[in-house]
């Protein structure tokens, strides 16, 4: 009698513990994580009035940096910010009015075309769409 009661308690509590070992991760899973959004291949790179003409910003595009550029004449363009020479991150030089890679002094014009220095190819260009107040960059 006693033995059986003990056995039942053992069974009940161990099954209960197993269930909580299942429920705990599930509950944790349901709580939204701190970083709220998954990276994506179209991304809101900036808001429409964030960039003045002749400035640019680096944004994270999937697992690589992108360069969002507002040309001095006001066009918005987006490129991969990965230099085609040795994968450094390129930047916009307002003084030169074109894109520049600091690592080996590679120069690209504002169309992403390599003009001087070691880069062998133009930068990959992305598509830019303006949706409401957001500048949305997407691949191809």
């Amino acid at each position, binding site marked *: 009698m006693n*033995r059986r009661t003990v056995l039942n308690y053992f*069974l009940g509590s161990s099954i209960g513990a197993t269930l909580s*070992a299942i429920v705990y991760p599930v509950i944790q899973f349901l709580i939204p994580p701190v970083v709220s959004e998954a990276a994506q291949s179209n991304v809101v790179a900036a808001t429409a009035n964030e960039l003045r003409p002749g400035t640019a910003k680096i944004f994270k595009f999937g697992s690589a940096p992108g360069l969002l550029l507002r040309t001095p004449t006001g066009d918005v363009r987006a490129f991969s910010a990965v230099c085609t020479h040795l994968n450094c991150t390129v930047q916009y030089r307002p003084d030169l009015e074109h894109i520049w890679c600091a690592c080996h002094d590679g120069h690209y014009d504002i169309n992403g075309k390599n003009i001087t220095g070691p880069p062998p190819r133009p930068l990959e260009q992305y598509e830019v769409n303006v949706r409401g107040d957001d500048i949305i960059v997407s691949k191809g």
Partner: protein
Amino acid sequence: MKDLLKLVLAWAIFSLAAETTVFARQASTATDTCVGCHKDLTESRLSLPALATASDVHTGRGLSCASCHGGDASETDKKRAMNPAKGFVGKPRAAGVAEFCGKCHSDATFIKSFNPSLRVDQELEYRTSVHSKRIAEGDTRAATCISCHGHHDIRAVKDTNSRVHPLRVVETCGRCHVDAEYMKGYQIPTDQLPKYMSSVHAENLYKKLDLSAPTCNDCHGNHGAAPPGAASVSNVCGTCHVRQSELFQKSPHKPVFDGLGIGECLACHNNHDTRHPTDAILGNHKTAVCATCHSEGAGFSAAGNMRLAIGRLAEGIGSADEILERGTRLGMEVSRIKFDLNQARNHLIDARVVVHGFSPDLLDTAIKPGIEITRKARQQGIEALDEAGFRRKGLALALIVIGLAILATYLKVRDIEKAGR
């Protein structure tokens, strides 16, 4: 029906016209008496030119023997055909070759009618070369146009069979410059070619087929071939290595190197055998290039400090990398951290360039952001490893709980079945 007939007719006329043009062109070469006679001559010295021109770029552009050599190609009589009065020139003397080719190639108006983008300054440049100066002094062994470009089978530079195609320049220059016998009396080394072949430039050119990698002419000039002066080396290298050159020009080394007459970039990187530089050539240890001049004092310690700074970043990245690799092997998803660490790698590449300013302060500024990124990535990597450890502990705990549940179930089954019996 009528339309169809028209179409057939048009086609017939067109093909007939096409055929006659082909005939016309063949006829024009057939009536070129230079080729007509020379190709059948038994002496190869005289027959080869007529045969070789078939693959010549000039032939392809519609030029014939007479276009360069003068004379009258419609005459069947030898004397009249090769009449000096009609401008016939046989084989030009070495000293006359540049002028011979320059007749057309220095004439911008003429060249433009064939290829508007072709340059016309070759002869001018050639006159500045060591080759030309030697020729002018009566040395017939120095190079003229035809030494490199060939004659009668001259091909366009972009033609891979051309002697001056980037991949064949080394061989072409080397024909003379490697030959110790031939070069005897010029007092210049003949080991440039094997040295060059061991360089990072040759590796890029031949192994990676990167035609923008420099070969002989890219540093020495193609037509005005001459060794660059010691003080202009950094300008030559700087045509590609722009930023390094800029930094060097502003560095304390520039005036000193020029004063000593040591060729700027070459002092550390060699000229023909320019190897892929490593961090090991920087510093104040024995094998570092800095130690060639600096054995003590401020330069000595600056070299050491710069090496330490680069090393700190490089090793930091290496160790963070290793931690992330371990994380990956443990099945952790660390691609986001790897992405961030890549930025640090950019700073390292940048720092290696900034070294050419030879200022420890400048270098420290370049390195600082990289160090910060590396520290963060490393921190996150360690967190990922901790998480992997936590998973294993969690697993162990879960397995204990499940194991107990299995045991309990087993005992219960046994108990029930004993009672049932």
